[in-house]
């Protein structure tokens, strides 16, 4: 079982530190291999990963429904509204595309932030699976703050609600950071537990008879609407039809903040140092425990922010189905991994997933082309495949290398496989 004779898997692919000298084609130098890894890793790996995931998703479509995957993907693309970016689309089609693009960007906002949440912790060597819980905590705090401070001026109200949500998300994640720093409890386990604790506390709060349930209507498990002064202004589209709110700029600002903190501050330097090698960082005089806590807290603040922007931007109240059914925080994992934990990468992959989620929703996908319920699950399959393939970037690198090998093998016919 350990060495199955499969043609596809000639040998376990072994970058980044392969056993040198095994390569019959003349082993490239370590520096060359590193350069390849960098180059391939920077932009090629995410591209191959996404392409692979979409290809497998297309096979699923073909095998199960017999429909043309390309036309299915095209219908999904039409639903994303990205056509708005093409100048030749005009008239009614352009207006429709604008509406769809607003929805896509509305979904992209929280994806950017939950992606940043996962990525920031990653940079410190921590895996924050708890984005979903921090998102729920942020939503809960934002809805309460949105109801409470009714009557104060709009910018102040928004600022208070958003700030409180970010702090709450940060503290929630901070529990995991604190436990990691003090008793060494693994953050994966603690954040998973915190996810579910947040989910059930949220369910209790907004559920029947819960303290946050709308006092004026106890027939549905949901909170009251927030005050108008807490809603985020819409700058593109119709506020009644869920136009794009100013949270869009908050997300862009967060991308910049993420980059600045990591690359231009002492705190970021320490976080990255711990992420590279915690022992070396400790030896260098960095308080590793404090970095764990700070990194988790900042990470959670991003996710809490995501929850507040969704709530103040277009949800306006918190529903039990959102508390229990939302998966934005989990999508953040895929966003961060595909974006390779960098600002630009996260922006791109958040847009990709935002477009995919919106394009496969019942609202935008043409049911005559492909059933939206199926397409929604197709999104999840693609999400899973992306995470699976990114996790094994060795596989993608292997494919990349195989391509190069094939190309080289064609030229010198004398180069033979010496045996594996």
């Amino acid at each position, binding site marked *: *079982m350990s060495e199955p004779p499969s043609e596809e898997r000639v040998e376990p692919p072994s970058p980044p530190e392969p056993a040198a000298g095994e390569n019959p084609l003349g082993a490239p130098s370590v520096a060359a291999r590193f350069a390849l890894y960098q180059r391939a890793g920077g932009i090629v790996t995410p591209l191959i990963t996404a392409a692979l995931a979409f290809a497998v998703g297309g096979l699923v479509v073909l095998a199960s429904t017999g429909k043309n995957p390309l036309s299915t993907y095209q219908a999904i693309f039409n639903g994303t509204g990205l056509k708005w970016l093409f100048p030749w689309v005009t008239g009614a089609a352009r207006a429709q595309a604008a509406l769809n693009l607003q929805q896509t960007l509305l979904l992209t906002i929280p994806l950017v932030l939950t992606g940043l949440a996962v990525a920031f912790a990653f940079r410190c060597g921590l895996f924050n*699976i708890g984005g979903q819980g921090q998102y729920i905590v942020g939503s809960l705090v934002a809805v309460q703050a949105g109801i409470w401070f009714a009557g104060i001026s709009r910018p102040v109200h928004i600022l208070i609600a958003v700030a409180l949500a970010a702090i709450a998300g940060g503290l929630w994640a901070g529990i995991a950071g604190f436990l990691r720093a003090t008793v060494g409890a693994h953050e994966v386990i603690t954040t998973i537990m915190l996810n579910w604790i947040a989910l059930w506390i949220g*369910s209790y709060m907004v559920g029947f008879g819960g303290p946050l349930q709308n006092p004026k209507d106890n027939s549905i498990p949901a909170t009251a609407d927030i005050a108008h002064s807490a809603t985020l202004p819409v700058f593109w589209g119709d506020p009644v039809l869920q136009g794009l709110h100013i949270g869009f700029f908050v997300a862009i600002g967060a991308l910049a903040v993420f980059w600045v903190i990591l690359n231009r501050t002492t705190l970021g330097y320490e976080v990255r140092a711990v992420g590279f090698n915690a022992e070396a960082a400790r030896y260098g005089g960095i308080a590793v425990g404090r970095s764990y806590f700070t990194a988790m807290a900042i990470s959670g603040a991003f996710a809490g922010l995501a929850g507040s922007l969704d709530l103040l931007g277009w949800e306006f109240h918190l529903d039990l189905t959102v508390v229990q059914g939302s998966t934005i925080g989990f999508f953040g994992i895929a966003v961060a*991994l595909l974006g390779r934990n960098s600002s630009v990468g996260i922006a791109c992959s958040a847009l990709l997933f935002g477009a995919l989620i919106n394009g496969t929703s019942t609202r935008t996908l043409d049911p005559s082309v492909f059933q939206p319920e199926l397409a929604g*699950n197709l999104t999840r399959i693609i999400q899973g495949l992306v995470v699976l393939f990114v996790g094994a970037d060795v596989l993608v690198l292997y494919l990349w290398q195989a391509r190069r090998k094939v190309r080289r093998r064609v030229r010198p016919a004398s180069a033979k496989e010496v045996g594996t």
Partner: protein
Amino acid sequence: MWSALLSATLRSATPLTFAAIGGLFSERSGVVNIGLEGMMLMGAFFAIWGADRTHSWVGGLLIAMAAGGALALVYAYFAIQLRADQIVGGTAINFLALGLTGYLYIDIYGVQGTPNNLPGIPDVHISWLEKIPPHGLGRFLQDSFGQMNLMIWMSFVLLVVTWLLMFKTPMGLRIRAVGEHPRAADTVGISVYRVRYGSVTLSGVLAALGGAYLSLGFVHSFSENMTAGRGFIALAALIFGGWRPFGAFGAALLFGFSSALARRLPDAYGSSAGTLFEALPYVLTLIAVAGVIGRSIPPAAVGRPYKKQ
């Protein structure tokens, strides 16, 4: 009343027990299994599909086991052979199973849902328990254990077998050695990859059985994402139980009890306060890993990919 609560506890605990024992095999061999949830979900769907196709619950169970094992094998390939990050891989498995089962469910059964004449896993009727003296005890035993589903009895058997296998046989020693110190195990001639492949695949098979109990043994239907986090409770039970079979079973019972309570309290008090009991397993596990009451310590090599030399 107490017997009703006990049998409700056992019903809730059984899927957790199967999945937690599955996780035990995987983690004892040094591979973290966050993907239990997804493997359970695969089992839940394919048990229904299999029973529908083969018109027998045995067929349903076998197909569920094959599906869970297959998904686990994919995970094993990425985690062991490709040395992918095990947390990332497990997360991917969960997404993948959620999408795949949801997709197939809609594709095959559509909006009408699964057929309602499926052959469910039978209950085991025991009538002599009532005769055990004194009468009150006999009555209690009869009400608690007299009508249990076959899968619940199977979980008891699995528990004993797992304990024997893990701690009394050479194979168990090998699994534990690979999970504690793979290099040392390799040095004495144990194939680390083979043991890990076997253990991870077995964990998928067992988790799928837990899922199959949920769908085919209990509600006799499938709905999207029907495991609803039970895989994670099973993971919590495994950790809370200190990576030991009976510890995990005890934790599964405790967590099953808390969710049985959570489902009954709203009837009594007419509010959502009961749902707080659903959070109890996670709070307890958080406390356990924080080390407030007897720190629970994982196998030494868990989560670390092994590279042959």
